[in-house]
C-alpha cells in the first residue's frame, strides 16, 4: 500500500512547483498507472515514493512505513525500476543480482528460484556471467527488472518500465504485473502508453502541472468526462491535460 498525503515538491527555491498538494492512495493488490505529459511531475512523485527526493511538504508511507522517518523499513519492502537503467556496468549480471540479494537479505533458496525463473523469462540466462557493459539497452532494462523482482517486494515502483523492451518481454512484464498484484502486492508505474494503462491498470491517475487532475478506474474516468467523444483513455488524457 502506498499513501501520499498533501505532498508537494518544488525546485529552484520554490519557483518551479513540480508536485502540488498531491494526495493519493494505492491499495494492496492494485496496479496503479500514473500518467501525465512530459514535465508534469510523474518522475518527481516516483522519486519521492522511493526516497530519492524529499518532499517539501506532506507525508508518504509505504506499507505503513513513513518514507522520511523509517526509510530503511520502507526501502526493505519496496523495489524501484528507473526510467533509464544506469547500473554497474563493470559487474556481471549475476554479480549485480547477488549484490541486490545480499542487501535485501534474500534467502538462498528464494534467490535461486527467482533468479532462474526471471532469467529464463527474460532470456538473460546465457549472458548472466557477462559484464553488464556488454548488454544492450533492453537487456539492461531486463536485468534491472529481474533485480527489482528478486526480493519479492510488497511494493514495486516503476518509471516507464516498458520503454526499451521488445514485444515479448513487454508482454511477459505485463503478465508479471498481474501475478505480482494477484498475490496482494502493490504496483505503481508511470507510462505514456495509453493502451497499456487502459488494459492493465485497476486505477489510473493523471497528473498535470504537479496536480492530480483525474484519478479512478477506467469507468470512473469515463464518467468524469463530460464530452460526447470522450471514450478512450487517450481522449480523456488529452482533455484533462489541455488547460
Amino acid at each position, binding site marked *: 500500500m502506498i499513501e501520499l498525503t498533501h505532498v508537494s515538491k518544488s525546485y529552484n527555491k520554490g519557483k518551479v512547483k513540480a508536485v502540488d498538494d498531491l494526495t493519493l492512495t494505492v491499495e494492496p493488490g492494485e496496479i496503479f498507472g500514473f500518467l501525465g505529459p512530459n514535465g508534469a511531475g510523474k518522475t518527481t512523485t516516483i522519486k519521492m515514493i522511493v526516497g530519492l527526493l524529499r518532499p517539501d511538504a506532506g507525508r508518504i508511507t509505504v506499507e505503513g512505513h513513513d518514507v522520511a522517518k523509517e526509510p530503511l523499513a520502507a526501502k526493505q519492502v519496496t523495489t524501484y525500476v528507473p526510467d533509464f537503467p544506469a547500473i554497474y556496468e563493470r559487474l556481471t549480471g549475476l554479480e549485480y543480482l547477488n549484490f541486490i540479494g*545480499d542487501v535485501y537479505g534474500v534467502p538462498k533458496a528464494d534467490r535461486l528460484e527467482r533468479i532462474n525463473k526471471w532469467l529464463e523469462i527474460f532470456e538473460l540466462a546465457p549472458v548472466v556471467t557477462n559484464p553488464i557493459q556488454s548488454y544492450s539497452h533492453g537487456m539492461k532494462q531486463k536485468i534491472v527488472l529481474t533485480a527489482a523482482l528478486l526480493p519479492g517486494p510488497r511494493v514495486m515502483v516503476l518509471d516507464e518500465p516498458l520503454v526499451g523492451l521488445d514485444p515479448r518481454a513487454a508482454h511477459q512484464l505485463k503478465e508479471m504485473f498481474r501475478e505480482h498484484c494477484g498475490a496482494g502486492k502493490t504496483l505503481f508505474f508511470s507510462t505514456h502508453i495509453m493502451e497499456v494503462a487502459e488494459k492493465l491498470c485497476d486505477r489510473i491517475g493523471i497528473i498535470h502541472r504537479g496536480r492530480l487532475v483525474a484519478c479512478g478506474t477506467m469507468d470512473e474516468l469515463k464518467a468524469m468526462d463530460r464530452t460526447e467523444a470522450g471514450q478512450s483513455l487517450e481522449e480523456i488524457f488529452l482533455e484533462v491535460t489541455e488547460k
Partner: protein
Amino acid sequence: MSGGARGGEGGGVSRARTLGTVIRVGVRSNFGLAIIKHRLFKEKKDRWLAWLIAVSFLGVVPLFYGVVLTVQNVYDILKPMGQERALLSLGFLAGQFLILMFGIYYVISAFYFSRDLELLIPLPLRPAEVMTSKFAVIVINEYLTVAAVVLPIVVTLGIISRAGVGYWVNAALVYAALPVIPLAVVSLVVVAMMRFINVSRKKDALILIGSILLIALALGVQVVLGRTAGGGGPETNAVAVAKFFTSPDSLLNRIGAFFPPGIWATKAVAGGFTGQGLVNLALLWAVSLGLFVGMVGLAEMLFYRGVVGLGETTGKKRRLTRDQMSRRVTSGRRAVAAVFGREWKIMNRTPIFLLNGTLVAVIFPAIFVLMATIDTGGGGAGKSGGGDPMVLLRAMISANPLIIILATALFMTICGSINGTASSTFSREGTQFWISRVIPVAPREQAAAKFVHSYLVAALGVVTAGAVAAIFLHVKAAHMAAAAGLSLVAGVLLTVVGMAIDLARPLLDWTNPQKAIKQNLNVLLAMLADIGILTIVFFAVKALVKAKLGTGAALGVLFAALAVVAAASYTALLKFADRRYPAIE
C-alpha cells in the same frame, strides 16, 4: 549527403567554423562553465566553495614564496658560472615531464572513455575535428597543471634579471606551446596503441598494461634525464667538474641534449627578440605544429577505428548449469560486505579508476625508488657511495630517532593518502548513485564499507612506502614499527577527511570517469586538507619537543592523540553519512 550545406568535405571557412564550435562546446562542457555560472550566480550555491578555494590558494602563497627564494638563491650561485639559463631549462623540462605524465591519463581518458563520444561520433564531424577538440581541452588542463612549476621560475628569473619585453613576450609564446610536443607524442603513441587494443577481447587489461608501460616509460625518461643532468655521478672527477662549470651554458646543453625542446624553449625566452631567441621560438613552434599536424593526420586514419566499439565487450554466451548457478549465487553475505565487494570490483575493473587510485599508492613510492637509484650507477639499494642521493637524506634524518620515525611516518602517510580513492568514493558512483539511495542499507553502513575499501588502498601505499623506506633509508625495525603505527592511524583520519569532503559535494553527473577522480575538485580539496592536518601535526610535535618529553613519550602522546581524533572523526563521518545521503538529489 556529405558536406552539402557546409560546402563539402573541404569547405574551408565552414569547416574552420565547425572546428571552432566543437572546441568551444568541448571546453565549456569539460570545465562545466555553464554549471559553474549557474551555481555561482543563479543558485548562489557554491559561493562558499569559491571562497574556500581562494583562501586555500592564499595558503599556498608561502610555498610559492619559498620557491621564489630558492630560484633566487640558485640564480645567484649559477650566475657567476654562466649557468643561470639552466634554471629555465630545468623549469621547462620539469613542466614538460609533468605534462607527459598527466598527459597519459588525460589522453587515454578524454580520447577513449568520455561518454560524449557517443554523441560526437554520429555527428557529421571528422575524426580529426573531434580529436582536436579533446586535445584543446587537455592542453588547457595542462596549462593549469604546469603553472605551479614553470611560472615561479620564469617570472622570478624575469624579474631578478630585469628582463626586457622580448623575454616576457617569448615566455608567453613558449608557455602556450609547452604542452603541445609532449601531448602530441603521447597522443601519437596512444592512438596507435588503442587501434590495436580495440581489436582484442581483453581491452581493459590491455589498456591497463599499455598505460602502465607508458607511465614506466615516462618515469624511465625522468631517470635518464636525471643521469644526464647529474653530470656522471661518482666517477666525475674534479677536472671534469671544473670544466663543466666554467664553460657557459654547459649545464643547459647537458640537460637539453636529452630533450631539445627544453633548450629551444630556454633560448627562445632568454634570447628575447634577438636572432637566437626568435629562431629558437620559431623552431619550438614549428616542431609543435608539425607534431600536432602529424597527430591530426593519424587521428583521421586511426582515431575512430580505435574508439568505435571500445565500450563494447563481447561476452561469450554461456548458460550455467543448475549446480554452477547454485554455487555462484551467494547467500548470507552482510550488507557491508556486499557494498565493499561492489566498491572493490568496480574500482579494480575500471582502468581509469585503477590507474588514478590504487596504482597511485604504488607509483608514488616507485618514483622515490627511481630517485633513489639515479646516479648510483646501478649500485642500487645497498650503495652508499658519494653519488647516492640517499646518503644525504639518511644523514639528514639519522641525527635523532624521533626525526627518523617522523620523517618515515610522513613519507608513508603521504604515499597512503596521495591517491584519490577516499576523496572520490561517492563521486565514482556517478549516475548509479540512485542504487545506493534506494537499497535498504543504512548510509552509515555504506560509508563504513567505503571506508574499509579506501583505507585498504591507503594501507597499500603505507606498506609499499614502508618497504621502500626500510630498503633505501635503512630504517631500523623498531623505528619502522613506530612509523607504521603513526601513519596507519593518521591514514584513518586522512581517509575520513577525504570521504567527508566527497560526501559533502559528490560529483555525480560526470560523463568521463576521469572527471570523477582525476579532475574532481574534491581530490584537490582533500589534498589541501591533508596538508593542513599534517601542518597541525608538525606544530603538535614541535610543542611536544619543546615540552622536553622523551622520544617514546612524545610518540606515545602523538599516537594517542591521533587515535582519539581518528576514532572521533570516523564516528562523525558515519553520522554525517546518515544526514547527508537523503539530501543528495
